[in-house]
């Protein structure tokens, strides 16, 4: 019964989304207030119905209702309760339902919190969001219905893929989807602005918080996914340039570019045409990612079971929305007026450079991800484009971006003075050079590239710190006034500084963990030891343990430093009994920012085992940097400027303030 309610609610949401696609947009174009007024309540109702539907599926999982096909295929009565819940989105149908839930959530949020947005713009935005919702609700109901019944109901389910039985599944997809799908709302804003033919500085101010929100969650989602792969897959890698990772990186790059170009548009009224295009592109890349993951066209860790019908359907959605929005763009963008002028060396110029490098690097990732596919389609050879390609293209494009990063926020609007800005960065440059020399001295001159990379990370961090400190003007106003100024700075200023510092921290982690990691693969017997960097691991032997739905072969290791035991770890080889599928549970011990990582491979008959041991210096900085970036985004989001209504052009109707 509950399952049928869920199914029914989904159909109701589909009908509502159809209403939403037509009436508000029509109303906004013809200036009909009553039609526009439909949008907010319908957005709320759509969220309610999809929410009921999601709750119904969750209920079916929680009670292990094996009369539902989706539950049979992905759950098991012995599975821990948390994984029964997270199993809801551990499969194609359920995760698509989560996707749609977040899509309508964003519509409802704009309806609830967007009261200071002009009525026409809000109605048209919610209308476009309704169109996207309609397409995906239809996709869900036609090709991926999670509520199909199975009769007779089996006694037991097939269990969830063991790799997914982890808290990572509870966190990674929801975060990632909020980011991915969050760009739908900036897309809707852009399409709405094009339909209405009006894009001004205020538009950028309304769109920016939504972009920030999506970007923040996407940053966290990517970081969480990376850490999950690192500890769960047992290979010790944190980024594989896997097509699906690339699919999340491309919208991130476009979204980051959008965040920056929206600043120019808001402050200076320039780059309008470009910002609107970026808003369209960011979501188009999210849709492309959805297509890549769900159509099975690519071989990937993330690929869901293949079904040609789904691939074709999503390709259809992709074509209609990307094609439609770009056509709308081509038709309406010439109407947008050119904004303020600026010199090449200026804050605007720096932000243009940022956009240029970010979009070009997104193109490089795009080519690397889709080239093998394109070659196969035209009947060419089967190839694989791996990390070397991306290291050679994406890497060099990031270097000028990082070098230029500290200059940007220090340059003045309109016309900047590069020489004066450079003087304010002497200290940062000194620190960066010192770091480079120190690393080169410690690690040897043959590691000069790594040393330079390290210096670059320090440069970015110190440059961002110099910028925020220069705003306090300690030398002129003294320590206490300066500190008070620092605390009183707008959230956006801190957001910029922390966002940039976060990038620098991540760069340090990437450089150190890539260049200075120590890896050993050995066969070890009880009582024997292996040494990586300063740490010696002594193997205590294997023991068997039984979990709720698995059996572990647990190895015990004592970790010694300088002959003193500092930690112990118990990595395991695990067999999930329902699917008879083995997994590797790595043993990870954190020392400061560095980690020792042990995973067990083949177990030998004599009690020995093949193991892989890593020392990964500063590896946690990779993810900590992402946390800092997201925190910067949050501070910027709470900037007062974005909550106070923007000044409105006089010819518009007055809208009551909140």
């Amino acid at each position, binding site marked *: 019964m509950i399952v049928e309610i869920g199914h029914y609610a989904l159909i109701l949401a589909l009908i509502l989304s159809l209403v939403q696609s037509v009436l508000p947009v029509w109303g906004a174009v013809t200036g009909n207030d009553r039609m526009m007024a439909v949008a907010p309540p319908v957005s709320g109702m759509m969220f309610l119905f999809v929410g009921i539907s999601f709750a119904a599926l969750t209920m079916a999982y929680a009670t292990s209702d094996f009369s539902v096909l989706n539950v049979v295929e992905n759950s098991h009565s012995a599975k821990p309760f948390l994984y029964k819940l997270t199993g809801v989105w551990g499969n194609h149908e359920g995760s698509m339902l989560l996707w749609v839930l977040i899509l309508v959530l964003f519509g409802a949020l704009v309806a609830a919190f967007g009261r200071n947005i002009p009525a026409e713009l809000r109605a048209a935005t919610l209308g476009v969001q309704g169109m996207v919702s309609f397409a995906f609700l239809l996709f869900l109901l036609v090709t991926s219905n999670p509520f199909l019944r199975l009769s007779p109901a089996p006694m037991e389910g097939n269990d969830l*893929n063991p*790799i997914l039985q982890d808290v990572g599944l509870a966190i990674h997809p929801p975060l990632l989807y909020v980011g991915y799908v969050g760009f739908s709302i900036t897309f809707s804003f852009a399409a709405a602005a094009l339909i209405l033919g009006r894009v001004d500085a205020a538009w950028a101010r309304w769109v920016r918080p939504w972009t920030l929100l999506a970007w923040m969650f996407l940053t966290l989602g990517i970081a969480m996914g990376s850490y999950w792969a690192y500890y769960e897959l*047992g290979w010790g890698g944190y980024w594989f340039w896997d097509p699906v990772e690339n699919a999340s990186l491309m919208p991130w790059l476009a979204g980051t570019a959008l965040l920056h170009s929206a600043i120019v548009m808001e402050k200076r009224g320039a780059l309008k045409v470009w910002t609107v295009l970026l808003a369209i592109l960011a979501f188009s890349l999210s849709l492309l990612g959805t297509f890549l993951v769900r159509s099975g066209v690519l*071989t990937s*860790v993330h*690929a869901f*079971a293949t079904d040609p019908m789904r691939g074709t359907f999503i390709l259809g959605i992709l074509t209609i929305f990307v094609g439609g929005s770009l056509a709308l763009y081509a038709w309406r963008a010439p109407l947008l007026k050119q904004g303020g*002028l*600026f*010199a*090449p060396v200026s804050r605007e*110029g720096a932000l*243009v*450079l940022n956009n*240029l*490098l970010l979009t*070009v*690097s997104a*193109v*490089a990732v795009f*080519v*690397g991800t889709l*080239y*093998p596919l394109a070659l196969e389609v035209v009947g060419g*050879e*089967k*190839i*694989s*484009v*791996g990390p*070397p*390609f991306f290291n*050679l*293209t994406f890497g*060099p*494009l990031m270097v000028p971006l990082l070098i230029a990063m500290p200059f940007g926020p220090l340059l003045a609007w309109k016309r900047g003075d590069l020489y004066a800005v450079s003087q304010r960065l002497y200290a940062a440059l000194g620190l960066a050079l010192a770091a480079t020399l120190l690393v080169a001295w410690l690690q040897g001159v043959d590691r000069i590239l790594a040393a330079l990379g390290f210096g670059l990370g320090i440069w970015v961090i110190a440059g961002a710190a110099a910028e925020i400190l220069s705003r306090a003007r300690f030398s002129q106003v003294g320590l206490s006034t300066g500190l008070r100024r620092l605390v009183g700075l707008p959230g956006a200023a801190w957001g910029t500084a922390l966002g940039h510092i976060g990038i620098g921290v991540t760069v340090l982690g990437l450089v150190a963990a890539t260049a200075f990691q120590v890896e050993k*693969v*050995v*066969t070890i017997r009880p009582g024997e030891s292996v040494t990586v960097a300063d740490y010696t691991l002594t193997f205590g032997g294997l023991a068997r343990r039984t979990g709720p739905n698995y059996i572990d072969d647990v190895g015990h290791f004592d970790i010694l430093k300088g002959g003193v035991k500092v930690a112990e770890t118990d990595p395991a080889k695990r067999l999930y009994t329902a*699917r008879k*599928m*083995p*997994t*590797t549970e790595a043993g990870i011990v954190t020392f400061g920012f560095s980690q020792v990582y042990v*995973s067990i*491979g*083949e177990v*030998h008959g004599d009690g020995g085992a*093949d*193991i*892989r041991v890593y020392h990964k210096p500063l590896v946690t900085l990779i993810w900590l940097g992402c946390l800092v970036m997201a925190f910067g985004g949050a501070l910027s989001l709470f900037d007062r400027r974005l909550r106070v209504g923007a000044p409105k052009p006089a010819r518009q109707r007055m809208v009551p303030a909140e």
Partner: protein
Amino acid sequence: MTRKQRRLSMIAAAGGVLAVAVGLILFALNDQIVFFQSPSDIVGKAHPDGQRIRLGGLVADGTVERRDGAEVRFSVTDTVETVQVVYVGLLPDLFREGQGVVAEGVMKPDGWFHADSVLAKHDENYMPKEVAEALKGKGVWQGEE
């Protein structure tokens, strides 16, 4: 600077960045891609030194031999030809005899394929796509479809 000069300098900068990016991409596509080959594509052919290959097929039954120091030797077959592979490292969890596998590495003059990474399916429903297609091409595919 006049308005026109400003615009020109911007376009020149953008063009420069684009040209560098396109150059990098073309160079990398020429140099850094890896071709997928089945044992039949490899056996009896000359291989330039150090050319990286992704070798796909089935792990031949009864050929997996483990040595000390985590060295593994096994054969990859497409049921027509067979290539011997040597690999040092930990094999993926789902590496098994008779199952699909993709090994990446180089063919050495000693006739062994020296792999530096080995991928297996990561789910019992899943077979590396290239392997499935190569096997279909040889008419020995036994899965669905």
